[in-house]
């Protein structure tokens, strides 16, 4: 709903987009809301479709509540990481950074050979985006750094979670 509202009303987009100067002025909600707004209908459609598929996978794995809880931390950390890693970037909008975090988190939570193979594909894709960044057919610059930071944070959260659970079982 937020994604669609941002598309229809520029004022909503302006109030929610992750904007460096505004965050520095204290508008901290943008660290979360920037991931929810999109630049055009195609952008929103692709990201919302990926969100639905990843949510379905998480639900099948019975991990959706844990993933949503993790997202509350993943979103602001991804925003801060992006603003620090790309000092020239003034603003960012879109879910895909978070979705890459979800993918990495789910792969590590699932484990096994198939997850390992999928993880290698994900790592190769992220490396390729850094080496040869392509905008694809989108009508705006695609910020690939968000994908990389999101995946690293997602993997990091999954590993911390795994260690915590191991420690709890051991204790």
């Amino acid at each position, binding site marked *: 709903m937020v994604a669609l509202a941002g598309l229809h009303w*520029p*004022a909503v*987009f*302006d109030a929610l*987009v992750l*904007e460096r*100067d505004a965050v520095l002025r204290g508008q901290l909600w943008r660290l979360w809301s920037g991931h929810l707004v*999109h*630049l*055009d209908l195609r*952008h929103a459609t*692709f*990201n919302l*479709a*990926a969100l639905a*598929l*990843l949510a*379905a*996978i998480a639900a*099948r*794995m019975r991990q959706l509540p844990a993933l949503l809880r993790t997202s509350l931390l993943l979103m602001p950390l991804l925003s801060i990481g992006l603003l620090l890693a790309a000092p*020239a*970037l*003034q*603003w*960012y*909008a*879109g*879910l*895909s*950074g978070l*979705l890459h975090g979800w*993918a990495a988190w789910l792969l590590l939570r699932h484990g096994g050979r*198939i997850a390992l193979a*999928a993880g290698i*594909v994900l790592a190769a*894709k992220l490396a390729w985006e850094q080496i040869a960044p392509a905008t*694809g057919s*989108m*009508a*705006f*610059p*695609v*910020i690939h750094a*968000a*994908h990389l930071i*999101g995946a690293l944070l997602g993997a990091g959260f999954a590993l911390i979670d795994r260690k915590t659970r191991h420690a709890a079982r051991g204790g």
Partner: protein
Amino acid sequence: MDHPRLSTTRRFARAFAVALATVAIAGCTSFFSGGGSRSGVSSSVVDYLYPPGTKFEPAQEGVPEVRLPARVGLMFVPSSRTPAGLTVADRQQLLEKVRDTFKAQPFIDRIEIVPDSYLRPRGGFENLEQVARLQGLDIVALVSYDQVANTGDTAASFLYWTIIGAYTVPATRNQVSTFVETTVFDVGSRTMLLRAPGQDQRDAGSTAIRASEARDELSRASFQAAMADMTTNLDGAILSFSERVRAEGQVKLVDRRSGGSWKGRGGGGSMLGWELGALLGALALLMLARRRG
């Protein structure tokens, strides 16, 4: 009711004032302290955009909107004569340097050099809009120049009419003075966004400047130095423009993609078609595995 004689005097005074203003504005270059002889070339942005007889008509009321990131055209203001010694390749090279300064700016989508043959001398905004439509431009950067080789026995200053007023360059005898200026306009709103001047003066020996080859070489070097000075000033002018827009809000910068306010360099994170396919495949595999298990 006015006395008839007084009224005639007033009418005469008014006509004289209008004539004086017209003469002052029509000529882009004037000289102080006569007696100095000169040869020079000029292309004035004032002459080009506001030829004599043009009435000033703002294109839109209220705060003008400029859509960014912009497609920018860079060109010399047309002139019947080019600076002595300056070849077409030189002019192209100089514009490329200016283009490089703009290129790094986040508000530029693309920037291209437009041949000045596309512009009609004294063509006004109508001509500029035609070129902008033809080339698909939102913003134009017009480079104008004035160069004077002062060969007389006495010193002479020259007065250059920039878009914001007169600019006096003091000169001495046997000297080449060059003034260049980049003036950036949003074509749709006919709004001047920023300007950056550059100038150079260099002396020659009293015999050397009279030799045409030496004068050509001096003119060329002076023009290139003035352009380099302007390119340096352009960086500052762009920075000052960004600060002015934020502080004073003279123009509204609109993001052409989102329709919201312009925020500088940015973008979106987006999934691609094949990634959706891969996720769909992963979900199908998971469902299959659960069914079998």
